[in-house]
């Protein structure tokens, strides 16, 4: 029997980036907030320190910072006629766990989405006509505009101290930045990071073809920075241990470095770690949440009553918690009805590998997770899709995250898979190779969705989330087109050999692609096709807000974190300025 705890105003389910920011802000607004985190507490000192943090085997291969598959995983299949099976180990994507969430092990790539992304269907139909979009795609508008989100993007970037060069300030194109970006209200908080050699080679090659290279916006900082919370971040030293690692240097924006200390100073805020939320509890009408039920590390069950429940976990866990709590109507691909689990999207990532002569030392280990140089010429709707049979696009760039050799030992086509030839090719090419990333959009399709698995359970006996996904034709065509562009850039960079691999079907869990799983609890204007209104508030249960990439109606060409950050502040403003004054639905249908 669950022990009933003293009621609080707000519970956040998860204390990663979104939970930490919302918890801090609402505690500061005078509310009693409890942050419930299923993983352990941890901090830069002492948990992320050298030398132990520089351990590729433990963190990158054995995934020490990730969700424990023994307790909880997802099941996966490519289509509804297959039987989904559990991802028994994380390989294809890596959900984090513990205080700070995935923002502890991220790379720090901090892009904004394009203005067109938020009014996607409207924009594409206006530009290309109503019949241009492949009918299998469930593309829709988000219910919020770039203009509305811009101050919140700005706020998140200034919280992180993001390093970059603006390309468009209030409509004025800025030299050295991304000329395609939506207008921003001011420059980045810190200047761009130093450009490593691979970035410089890419810049030269891309410029020679008439493209517009710019430094990748990075929340691994170019210089010390004190954020509006009074927290000081340090200069990134390019140690090469970002992705899948925690930063020992206080140089990467993560909840521990940008916001949590401010939350924990406030007696209105309480953090509970190693506690797994099983469900959101609803009252007898099913329209109001009464709190959450969770189990602590010792197996004791608690009911935590709350006025507001903020679901702030990883996208998959947000959707699973809704389904396991009976909130919203599950999506049915055969009828197209129901919204929970609908519009799941991923990221369509591919690569071109540029092999150089042995006298060109790339030194790939001198890197941060987000240092590098990219072009936006083929992202989203930055080019005319009229002649092509697809929507969307990809940024292309030289982004190398550290050259750690268990994962990174490139060999050119024709190299034996093992044996002496393999070994000698690895020795020859390790320090003389640049990998170009083609980071592409992913569109929701009718047959791709999330629901509860009928067979496999987690350690608490609850159904796992089931992911049914394969890349839509549209995205395969996009990947082919933009990967060809990357190949051309690779040749212009002076490589001897360029080996490209556009994304192909089937989607496979057996090689890492990205952890950018989005959708399933999307925001929008129509309760039939969205779980949340434009303020990330549940249509069906108005004191539940679901914050995360699960709210994306599609996934754009970019890494999602900055947009999740902007949506977090957007929803926070709605809660503080509207909801608290008059609890209830913020949008009436």
């Amino acid at each position, binding site marked *: 029997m669950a022990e009933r705890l003293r009621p609080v105003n707000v519970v956040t389910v998860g204390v990663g980036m979104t939970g930490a920011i919302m918890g801090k802000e609402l505690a500061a607004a005078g509310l009693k907030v409890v942050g419930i985190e299923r993983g352990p507490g941890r901090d830069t000192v002492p948990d992320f320190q050298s030398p132990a943090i520089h351990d590729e085997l433990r963190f990158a291969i054995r995934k020490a910072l990730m969700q*424990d598959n023994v307790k909880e995983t997802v099941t996966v299949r490519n289509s509804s006629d297959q039987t989904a099976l559990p991802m028994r180990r994380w390989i294809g994507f890596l959900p984090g766990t513990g205080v700070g969430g995935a923002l502890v092990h991220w790379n720090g790539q901090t892009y904004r989405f394009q203005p067109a992304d938020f009014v996607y269907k409207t924009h594409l139909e206006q530009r290309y006509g109503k019949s241009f979009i492949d009918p299998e795609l469930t593309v829709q508008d988000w219910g919020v505009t770039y203009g509305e989100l811009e101050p919140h993007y700005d706020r998140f970037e200034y919280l992180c101290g993001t390093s970059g060069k603006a390309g468009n300030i209030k409509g004025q194109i800025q030299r050295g930045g991304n000329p395609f970006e939506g207008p921003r209200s001011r420059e980045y908080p810190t200047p761009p990071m130093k450009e490593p050699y691979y970035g410089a080679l890419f810049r030269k090659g891309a410029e020679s073809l008439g493209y517009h290279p710019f430094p990748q916006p990075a929340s691994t900082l170019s210089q010390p920075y004190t954020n509006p919370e009074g927290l000081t971040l340090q200069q990134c030293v*390019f140690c090469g241990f970002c992705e899948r690692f925690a930063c020992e*240097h206080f140089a990467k924006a993560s909840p*521990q470095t940008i916001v949590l200390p401010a939350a924990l100073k406030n007696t209105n805020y309480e953090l509970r770690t190693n506690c797994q939320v099983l469900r959101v509890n609803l009252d007898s009408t099913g329209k109001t949440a009464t709190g959450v039920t969770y189990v602590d590390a010792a197996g004791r069950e608690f009911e935590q009553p709350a006025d507001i429940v903020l679901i702030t976990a990883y996208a998959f866990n947000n959707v699973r918690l809704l389904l396991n709590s009976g909130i919203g109507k599950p999506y049915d691909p055969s009828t197209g009805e129901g919204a929970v689990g609908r519009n799941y999207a991923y990221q369509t990532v591919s690569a071109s590998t540029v092999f150089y002569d042995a006298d060109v030392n790339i*030194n790939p280990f001198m890197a941060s997770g987000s240092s590098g140089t990219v072009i936006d010429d083929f992202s989203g709707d930055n080019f005319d899709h009229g002649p092509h049979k697809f929507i969307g696009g990809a940024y292309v760039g030289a982004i190398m995250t550290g050259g750690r050799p268990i994962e990174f030992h490139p060999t050119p086509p024709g190299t034996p898979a093992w044996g002496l030839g393999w*070994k000698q090719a*690895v*020795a020859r090419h390790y320090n003389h190779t640049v990998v170009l990333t083609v980071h592409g959009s992913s569109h929701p399709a009718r047959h791709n969705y999330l629901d509860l698995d009928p067979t496999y359970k987690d350690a608490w006996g609850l159904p796992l989330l089931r992911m049914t996904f394969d890349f839509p034709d549209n995205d395969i065509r996009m990947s082919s087109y933009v990967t060809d562009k990357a190949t051309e850039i690779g040749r212009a960079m002076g490589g001897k050999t360029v080996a490209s691999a556009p994304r192909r079907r089937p989607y496979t869990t*057996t090689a890492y692609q990205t952890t950018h799983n989005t959708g399933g609890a999307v925001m929008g204007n129509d309760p039939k096709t969205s779980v949340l209104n434009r303020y990330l508030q549940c249509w069906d249960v108005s004191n539940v807000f679901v914050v995360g990439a699960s709210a994306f109606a599609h996934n754009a060409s970019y890494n999602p974190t900055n947009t999740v950050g902007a949506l977090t502040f957007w929803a926070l403003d709605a809660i503080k300025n509207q909801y608290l004054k008059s609890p209830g639905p913020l949008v009436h249908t």
Partner: protein
Amino acid sequence: MPIGLAANDAPAQERPSVPTAAGSSAVAAQVATYLFLNAEEAAFIEAAVARLIPADDRWPGALEAGVPNYIDKQLNGAWGAGERLYRSGPWQTGTPSQGYQLPFTPAEFFRTAISAINAELRAKTPFAKMTAAEQDTYLHSLEAGGKDLGGVPSNIFFSELWESTVEGFFSDPVYGGNRAMVAWRMIGFPGAYASYYDIVHQHGISVDRGPVSLAEDVHGHVHMNPAIPAHLP
């Protein structure tokens, strides 16, 4: 200069001082105490990794680098026992896209497959007694799949063996492989340095310093700002 490569101001470790194949017998003489593998299993692993990443006249191979020791310690530890492996049934083969779907822990998996291989070859020529060319042919046959190794498909076994060999070759020496950081020296990976800030903009330079392992005493060189307090409980 508070940070940077200069922190490691020991003389660059010259490549000639690295154990080469010619000197590899001295390295291999540091016989590992196997905690998990029995003698027959160890003989297979030692012979197999020596073909997967062979020694040549410049650099030692997986055997000389201690990869069998790495595999033994991994199988004997938490990973071998199925740490971070979802182990609930039902068990189904699935599609290649769905990844590993066998009920074996890594320890059970290696023991099962190697036992089947050794049982098959005991009456013929044990793997370790084959010529190098015969060993390569046999490994290729495992890689091609279609052979059942006590319930482990041979191609899946090959793939796990190969992954473990690469891990043991390139992981930090604290795990028992990559002895004397030979694999890092071979490719020019400097290991666990904490900072390249002062040289990252020096494009194309040759980094001539020896690599650093987690096990080395680098205290004082890697902490960017230890004075900054922690706040979490």
